């Protein structure tokens, strides 16, 4: 136990359950908190879904618009582009929630001046992070289910069309979100309160090069290599591939998984390094006291 405890890698289910219980207490009481989690993704889905429907209507009446829409969708029809857009909104929410579950949980403890109580409790860093993973998964399950049901009734978009590809696509976005969350928190260790805004900014910073709403081919040539370094790119390209009925996406999944494993390991070291660095500089004490 000593070695894993020293490295902060020990994970005891009872302690993770303890950390999760406080989120349970918060969410079962605070309607506003639940609303905050559900409101924005549902609004995104509703607004962009209807915008897409509007484009679809233009497509049926204006051939020129249809051609343009087809071109921007990488050769897909306007109807197909709408399906892609709805799928992308639901999938991007998975990435965003996974990232937020780590970075915002940490910031909430910081703002409520509770972080010191957590740091001096007999829990490891891995247990703290594991609890945020569990809470993130629960949030994503609830919000994604709600969005999928809404998408089905409002736009006849059936997420189950993705069939078995749904699980690996979901897992890849989850792991990438966790990596981003740990990276954001590590940057708060390094730069202090001034880096807090990154908790909300980071997912949107990588969104343009993640092929979320459009294929990589739409990007300028010089930017495309950057997009191919992002695991989410392969997830969203794979999602469009399946929705367009173009068959197997094993290659996409393999590359996304390999990149995710690589980044997760690198970010874990970065997180541990920044935590130790904050201890040496006294920055951790300034942050939590």
């Amino acid at each position, binding site marked *: 136990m000593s070695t894993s405890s*020293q490295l902060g890698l020990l994970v005891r289910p009872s*302690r993770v359950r303890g*950390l999760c219980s406080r989120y349970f207490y918060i969410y079962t009481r605070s309607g506003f908190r639940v609303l905050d989690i559900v409101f924005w993704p549902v609004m995104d889905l509703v607004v962009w879904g209807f915008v897409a429907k509007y484009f679809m209507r233009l497509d049926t009446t204006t051939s020129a618009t249809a051609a343009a829409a087809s071109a921007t969708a990488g050769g897909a029809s306007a109807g197909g582009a709408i399906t892609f857009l709805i799928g992308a909104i639901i999938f991007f929410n998975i990435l965003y929630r996974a990232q937020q579950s780590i970075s915002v949980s940490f910031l909430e403890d910081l703002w409520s001046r509770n972080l010191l*109580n957590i740091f001096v409790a007999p*829990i490891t860093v891995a247990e703290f992070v594991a609890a945020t993973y569990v809470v993130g998964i629960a949030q994503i399950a609830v919000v994604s289910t709600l969005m999928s049901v809404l998408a089905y009734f409002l736009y006849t978009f059936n997420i189950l069309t993705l069939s078995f590809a749904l699980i690996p696509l979901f897992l890849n976005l989850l792991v990438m979100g966790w990596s981003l969350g740990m990276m954001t928190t590590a940057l708060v260790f390094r730069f202090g309160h001034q880096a807090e805004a990154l908790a909300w900014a980071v997912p949107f910073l990588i969104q343009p090069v993640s092929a979320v709403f459009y294929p990589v081919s739409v990007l300028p040539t010089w930017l495309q290599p950057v997009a191919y370094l992002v695991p989410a790119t392969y997830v969203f390209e794979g999602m469009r591939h399946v929705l367009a009925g173009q068959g197997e996406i094993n290659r996409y999944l393999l590359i996304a998984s390999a990149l995710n494993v690589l980044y997760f390991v690198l970010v874990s070291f970065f997180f541990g390094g920044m935590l130790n660095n904050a201890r*040496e500089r006294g920055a*951790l004490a300034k942050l939590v006291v």
Partner: protein
Amino acid sequence: MTLNQAVVAVDKLNKTFGKVVAIEEVSFAINRGEVVGLLGANGAGKSTTIQILLGLISPTSGSLSIFGLDPWKERVNVLERCNFSSAYVALPYNLKVIENLDVFAQLYGVPNRKAKIASLLELFEVGHLASKLTGGLSSGESTRVNLCKALLNDPEFLLLDEPTASLDPDIADKVRKLLAQVQKERGMTVLYTSHNMKDVQELCDRVLFLHKGKIIAEGTSAEILTQFGQASLEEVFIHIARDQVLAPAEEKP
């Protein structure tokens, strides 16, 4: 007493931040069941010392052991037997008192959580606040709830950082008396920091005075008063803070 027999043993601890020396060659030991006051003006190195003990700051050099264990290598094992309370740390405001205590009871692996929480709330006379949101408590109530959290795991070593700060004299007196009672009953080892010299004189068996990162005086309150020729610890504090005293290394032969 040797360093190995002490609950806390600090030996030649140094911490520098760049060119700034925060603490220098700090050594002390705390016996089992002893209450030691760590005093010093702002910037004396008191916070740095506590934060090193809590594992928030890594020392530049020197050694530290708690229960004979290296807290950096045996962090979880050490922290399971310790606890901490500070006037400057809060429990999440959006949870009820009982929920906050339940969460921390789980984190500390406390058996029979409900009974333990109920007995502590009763001890600190805050049982009626169990279902109240923590954010709605007064300073005095909040302090007592924080102390309930600090005693959940029956700690062998308790760190108290200005627990009576911002309390009115009546509540401060109640808290002081309760702490003294609990400490005696359980034989807890306590490291206590405060700017309230009455707290220190009443509660502490021994006092360490830090000045410019060094321990310049150590002993019982009576010994300290004799050493500095002052009538109260407050006068000693002011005497030291106003730099009217030389650190041991600076003393004239």
